[in-house]
């Protein structure tokens, strides 16, 4: 996709870039860690899917190592405390849903929202990334599509019984995502990633996931923008 800046115009070693990268890279590392933990936790709720979930969790752990290497490559120390706070809202909602055995909610948070956001952000990042990070991110994003597919398939198979829970999970968690995005808008711009492109890319991916699960265009248009204008 066309981007605001071409990689050649970006100084990856400038103080401004590295400062922004310390937070963005930390978010990505933390996101992969959360994903790893979430998939392992889901094995308790979905014992029949244990093999698949453990495989997904291992992939997420590998992604985390890849993004740690990206930080080291640019000599940036990721701000992990910032990242843990950044994910706290979604983390807490996932933990509460898991404790209440709400599988659909857990899958909406992890397999739809987080994975769609990862896919959107990685796709927007790839054209403006440094060479080292680009190669790693290109490989990661291919895996993330399969993770999204895992959640889609389960929710599709259980669509009629879980529809209301999916809608409720959407209402509770999508506004958190918009707030998270606003929090890193300035840092993302320093990396060459525009907020409007990120939001659009997320809504395309998320809308497709909702369509695959069984929602109508009208429902998708309503659900995928929930809370956006208030954020």
């Amino acid at each position: 996709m066309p981007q605001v800046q071409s990689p050649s115009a970006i100084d990856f070693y400038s103080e401004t870039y590295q400062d922004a990268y310390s937070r963005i890279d930390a978010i990505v590392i933390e996101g992969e860690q959360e994903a790893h933990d979430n998939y392992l936790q889901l094995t308790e709720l979905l014992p029949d899917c244990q093999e698949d979930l453990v495989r997904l969790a291992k992939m997420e752990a590998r992604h985390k190592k890849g993004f740690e290497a990206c930080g080291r490559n640019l000599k940036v120390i990721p701000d992990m405390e910032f990242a843990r706070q950044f994910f706290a809202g979604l983390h807490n909602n996932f933990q509460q849903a898991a404790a209440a055995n709400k599988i659909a909610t857990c899958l909406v948070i992890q397999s739809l929202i987080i994975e769609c956001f990862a896919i959107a952000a990685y796709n927007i990042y790839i054209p403006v990334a440094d060479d080292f990070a680009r190669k790693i991110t290109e490989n990661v994003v291919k895996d993330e599509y399969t993770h999204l597919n895992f959640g889609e398939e389960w929710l599709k198979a259980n669509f009629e019984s879980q529809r209301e829970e999916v809608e409720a999970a959407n209402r509770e968690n999508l506004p958190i995502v918009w707030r998270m995005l606003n929090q890193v808008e300035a840092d993302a711009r320093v990396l060459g990633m525009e907020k409007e492109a990120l939001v659009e890319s997320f809504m395309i991916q998320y809308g497709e996931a909702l369509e695959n699960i069984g929602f109508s265009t009208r429902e998708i248009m309503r659900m995928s923008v929930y809370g956006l204008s208030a954020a």
Partner: protein
Amino acid sequence: MFGLIGHLTSLEHAQSVAEALGYPEYANQGLEFWCMAPPQIVDSITVTSITGQKIYGKYVESCFLPEMLATQRIKTATRKILNAMAHAQKHGIDITALGGFSSIIFENFNLHTITQIHNIKLELQRFTTGNTHTAYIICRQVEQASAQIGIDLSKATVAVCGATGDIGSAVCRWLNSRLDVAELLLVARNQERLQELQAELGRGKILSLEAALPLADIVVWVASMPRGVEIDPTHLRTPCLMIDGGYPKNLATQIQHPGVHVLNGGIVEHSLDIDWRIMEIVNMSIPSRQLFACFAESMLLEFEQWYTNFSWGRNQISVEKMEKIGQISVKHGFQPLLFQ
């Protein structure tokens, strides 16, 4: 399956359409929101040919708005078009027309160099600008509407405004070789391209808009970009036929003068009703039958199963291709819009 990629004419129009279609989440939003909004399939279409053949299609709303170009949000505008194309391809649409500004943005910003949209490799043979059919229909409108208002083409001067564009140059080629037109006036901004066109045609006077208008019995308006041109109708000949092939179509509201007849150009009327909702919102006078000729091109390609980018690139439209699309246009029951 055929597809149409369209957009609305302004933010205000977009808000009112979203309201009318029952999408309140979109209706109350400003330009910033539309810049983030993803493409959506908002209509399913069934078209029946006069041969009895039925085809099915989808309308893809790109969420592009002309204000994005006016405010220099070029990246946003190009992203909208590419994402809409990827959306059409992902939904298995075989041939999709790029309506309104979509094809102009694709051409002007060289989007053919960008074929990878995230995980989708764009297959450009699935898309057509629809310009060949638009040019053909405009030429038939020149021929038939001039007769309606008593202009004799063999004695008429025809000015083509936007002559060097994709549609404009095709119209010039047809007027030059298929119709007996007394004089051809070529109007455009780029002098080099004008001279190339004049050399190719072997005729035609290159004039400024101001110089050409008072001399023309027929004005074909196909300028590709919005421009704030004021036309003084008292300086036009009477009778004068003005064919508004631009987008959006605003000449009819701008020029209301005795003896000056304005016709919406590049519009076709189908012989049978089309099952869709979307044309109601683009203000056609008979929404069930009238549509942009560029959209009709994707329908024609679907009827004939010519899954190819029939109209593509700049200034590639030959008279032979116009004849070819014209034959199937007639075969399936499409007619150029004329004066009632």
